[in-house]
């Protein structure tokens, strides 16, 4: 029996000790179940995130075990709370420091679109300058909503390969650049 015969019928020769699949699926599976968040907590949604991470609603059981406060060691950034014009450069710098592949979840109404604050100081949505993957509505969203978003993101990571991800990010960046082009003051 050659090696190829064994590998094509794993259940028969080696039992359940060996699984055969392709590399992409394994990598995606591993990534999706250990998404370490970087909680960028600005305002009220940060308190709801604390409630999600603590007892009663535990986000660690879904893999987001270690909220890391160093961008280099995190997989996704959770933007929790209102982003003002003074804070926007800081957020952008932190996003640039995250290592690939990185995901952005915008939690709450203020981060997604400015929320109830249509004022002179508040950025009307972080997708003015960042490519966002998931938007969570609510003011603030319940902990169950944040967990639901994490599950959806896990689904997305599992099914999307690396090449598709790169194409998607490129497309999103182009959209943002197109939208912002008339606003640039030369």
């Amino acid at each position: 029996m050659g090696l190829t015969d064994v590998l094509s019928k794993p259940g028969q020769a080696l039992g359940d000790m060996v699984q055969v699949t392709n590399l992409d699926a394994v990598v995606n599976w591993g990534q999706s179940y250990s998404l370490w968040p970087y909680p960028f907590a600005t305002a009220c949604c940060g308190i709801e995130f604390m409630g999600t991470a603590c007892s009663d609603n535990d986000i660690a059981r879904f893999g987001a075990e270690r909220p890391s406060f160093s961008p280099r060691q995190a997989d996704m950034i959770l933007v929790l709370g209102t982003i003002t014009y003074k804070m926007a450069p800081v957020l952008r710098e932190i996003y640039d420091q995250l290592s690939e592949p990185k995901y952005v979840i915008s939690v709450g109404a203020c981060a997604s679109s400015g929320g109830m604050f249509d004022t002179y100081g508040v950025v009307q949505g972080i997708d003015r300058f960042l490519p966002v993957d998931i938007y969570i509505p609510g003011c603030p969203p319940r902990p169950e909503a944040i967990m639901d978003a994490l599950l959806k993101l896990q689904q997305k990571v599992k099914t999307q390969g690396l090449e598709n991800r790169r194409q998607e990010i490129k497309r999103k960046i182009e959209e943002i650049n197109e939208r912002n082009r008339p606003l640039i003051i030369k």
Partner: protein
Amino acid sequence: MKEKVETLLNTKLSKYIFKTETVSSNIPTFFIKSEGIVPVVGALKEDPDLKFDFLNDLTAIDWLGKKEPRFEICYLLKSPKNKHSRIMLKVPVEEGEGIPSIVSVFKGANWPEREIFDLFGLEFINHPMMDRIILPDNFQGHPLRKDYPLEGFGQDYLISDLLQIHKED
């Protein structure tokens, strides 16, 4: 309490009184000229009987179109010794005038005066650091004035270097 303060102001500091006007408020209000605010606040703090030695609040009001002069700076003082009663001193100023800072009398007036400068545009003389505190450094205008709209004039100049994302990053 109000009568005692009035007596003190009328006897020793009468040259600093701007006008006597009744304001419908729950706190006795006195109008002081801007050059006299430091002596008046100092006298109210040092007076052994009145002892208004707690600065409760420092803010400003813009009366565009309703009153002359346009701005009023409100100092709210509290006296813990006299059952925590409060008085309000108001200083009417016109745009462009400088007001002496009371940081030498109350240390805690530092940030509120910077906030008034930031949001209204009124400068304080002899302040250790007269800079913007709450708004970004490249902000133009003073938002809490009545002729500044709530939504702003188009605020994208503030993050203009972020709006284009380079693909290599």
